[in-house]
């Protein structure tokens, strides 16, 4: 589904490369965890997949379902099923969460040539998902992420994911800032979305999240490279030994 080959990236107008040759293949139905210390390039990778400005791709390619992902605008990527759950969700004053979701879903459906969802159907859809994620109705009326607590923001991200039903979910540090109860709710939400035709890339610093979202593959990212890949047991090993050994290896 997703194929990253020899991806080199630097921040525009800066010399230093942040990603220095990433190779990664994610198949439908698979959950990949990408772990790494701060500054290893994890968030950059997520932004590159979602199409954020400000980065220069100096080499390599990313294909998604056989298409050149890097050639697509952020909204085209979203419409084709790529979803990034932001580490720091953005506040949009005055735009109610419900309204935002409706516009996003309509735009995506339209781009895919699908019919408009009727308003009652949409409301039912959102309310149902919200209930599962313990997102209360009041939050849906509030402006997108404005005044939300850290946990509320993360739950709102997962709610968006549940409503938009993407085929590739990229979760950037979704566990940061969550207490154990909130983490469980978020993880349950994510797990409910696991399916044979949906892939997930879970980016995290800590192994903790992976106790709840059990990955099929774990990759260690250090200094812009994947330095080791393995099964879910790799996460436990990292938890025990830390990243120090890999940092030397990548240097």
């Amino acid at each position, binding site marked *: 589904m997703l194929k990253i080959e020899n991806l080199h990236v630097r921040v525009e107008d800066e010399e230093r490369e942040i990603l220095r040759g990433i190779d990664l293949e994610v198949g439908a139905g698979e959950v990949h965890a990408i772990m790494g210390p701060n500054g290893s390039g994890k968030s950059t990778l997520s932004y590159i997949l979602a199409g954020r400005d400000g980065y220069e791709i100096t080499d390599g390619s990313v294909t998604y379902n056989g298409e050149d992902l890097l050639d697509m605008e952020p*909204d085209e990527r979203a419409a084709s099923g790529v979803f990034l759950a932001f580490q720091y969700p953005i506040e949009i004053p*005055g735009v109610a969460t419900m309204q935002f979701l409706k516009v996003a879903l309509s735009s995506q459906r339209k781009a895919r040539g699908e019919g408009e969802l009727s308003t009652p159907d949409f409301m039912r859809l959102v309310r149902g998902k919200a209930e599962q994620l313990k997102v209360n109705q009041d939050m849906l009326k509030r402006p997108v992420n404005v005044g939300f607590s850290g946990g509320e923001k993360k739950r709102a991200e997962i709610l968006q994911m549940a409503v938009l039903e993407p085929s590739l979910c990229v979760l950037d540090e979704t566990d940061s800032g969550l207490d154990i109860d909130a983490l469980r709710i978020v993880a349950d939400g994510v797990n409910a979305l696991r399916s044979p035709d949906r892939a997930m890339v879970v980016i995290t610093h800590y192994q903790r999240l992976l106790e709840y979202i059990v990955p099929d593959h774990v990759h260690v990212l250090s200094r812009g490279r994947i330095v080791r890949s393995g099964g879910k047991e790799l996460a436990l090993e990292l938890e025990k030994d830390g990243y120090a050994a890999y940092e030397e290896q990548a240097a």
Partner: protein
Amino acid sequence: MADVETIERVREIDVDKYKYGFETEIESDFAPKGLSEEVIRFISGKKEEPEWMLTMRLDAYRRWLDMEEPTWAKVDYPKIDFNDIYYYAAPKGQDGPKSLDEVDPELLKTYEKLGIPLKEQEILAGVRKQGEPSTLDEEGGGEYASGKVAVDAVFDSVSVVTTFKEELAKAGVIFCSISEAIREHPELVQKYLFSVVPQGDNYYAALNSAVFSDGSFVYVPEGVRCPMELSTYFRINAENTGQFERTLIIADKGSYVSYLEGCTAPMRDENQLHAAVVELIALDDAEIKYSTVQNWYPGDADGKGGIYNFVTKRADCRGANSKVSWTQVETGSAITWKYPSCILRGDNSRGEFYSIAISNGRQQVDSGTKMIHLGQNTSSRIISKGIAAGYSDNTYRGLVSAHRKATHARNFTQCDSLLIGDKCGAHTVPYIEAKTSTAHFEHEATTSKISDDQMFYCQARGLNEEEAVALIVNGFVRDVIQQLPMEFMAETQRLIGISLEGSVG
């Protein structure tokens, strides 16, 4: 869902974004070109006005001759040749309002095209169907769930039709053209006309007082809650013609009325002048809600053509506990010069001003409000949202003052500006004058842009650039949109998308 509609509307439009730019082919009667006592007598004669009205007009004209065009606003335009304008133009055979079946079918078609319902069984185009429940907009909205709107349609210099007059009359509400009111209700007109905006108030008000040709008149008697939304649609059609309408609304003790006006004009290369005066009078415990969606032709991308909109709007909260609320959505006009104001004379009276001013292309907006606190315990609230794009300049100019005797006056002002692109300007010029210590004034202003993060976040959820801008701007102006009658909310959100078309990328 209004935003979705905004977006769809933006998509539908390609070259010609101003959808009201057509011209109606209709023969018109004109006054001789230019301004003189003769022209004023001509207009007064056409209206079959009593002598006192003509005297007032001529007085205003003489004052105007001695006045100079104001230059303090942050707008720049070539000097207007006031003798190169027709001050009166009316569709042939249409010197005043008629019953619907007598109105020229061309005119009916025009209003149909503009989406304005002149048949009483119709409701405003572009809004939800009569009786259809609101879905997502869980916040408040319109007062009148029926969706019924009475319309006074003003075409160039004359009112062509006023709807629902009989139904309103049953409630005691007078809703007619000002020309008709001068003839039919002279006692009310003489008592209140010029009592808020005198003939010599300012340059454009004096000009209007001399040549005003039509406009709306509303009187809501004591204790009456006007049973439906009242509205006036102003349409400039004829070439080289100015529109000078005069509106007078009186809410007698304990009454309530909500009134809205809309304005459009054809696309022309020359500039056309619109100099209106609106006077509102609220007596004890009365409330007037006045909403405007101003969508005059703004000129083309290079600043050619467009309406010069020089308007004096003022409310006198004359009675104790009276309340006036101005809501304006300004998207059109090449130049906007407009400061809807409240004189808070009655004790405990309240004034509100909610404004969205969007400028794009080469538009210049200088708009704001004045809240003059004279009575005790008066309060006012100002929420202004300015959005500048393209090469436009967008200025908020406002005054909040409390006189010595206005003890315990209160004001809260919030002025926010949003810039889209780096070729436009957004300016804030508030004046605050507190002449008593018990007045409590708070003023806040911010200027910012749509952040890259917000844009990216929206795009990552599937919105394209223009959709994202429309959505974020609609959020930015939400506080004001909520003040509009529900009939106008959706239309306004659409208009915002259209006005900002081409502002990104």
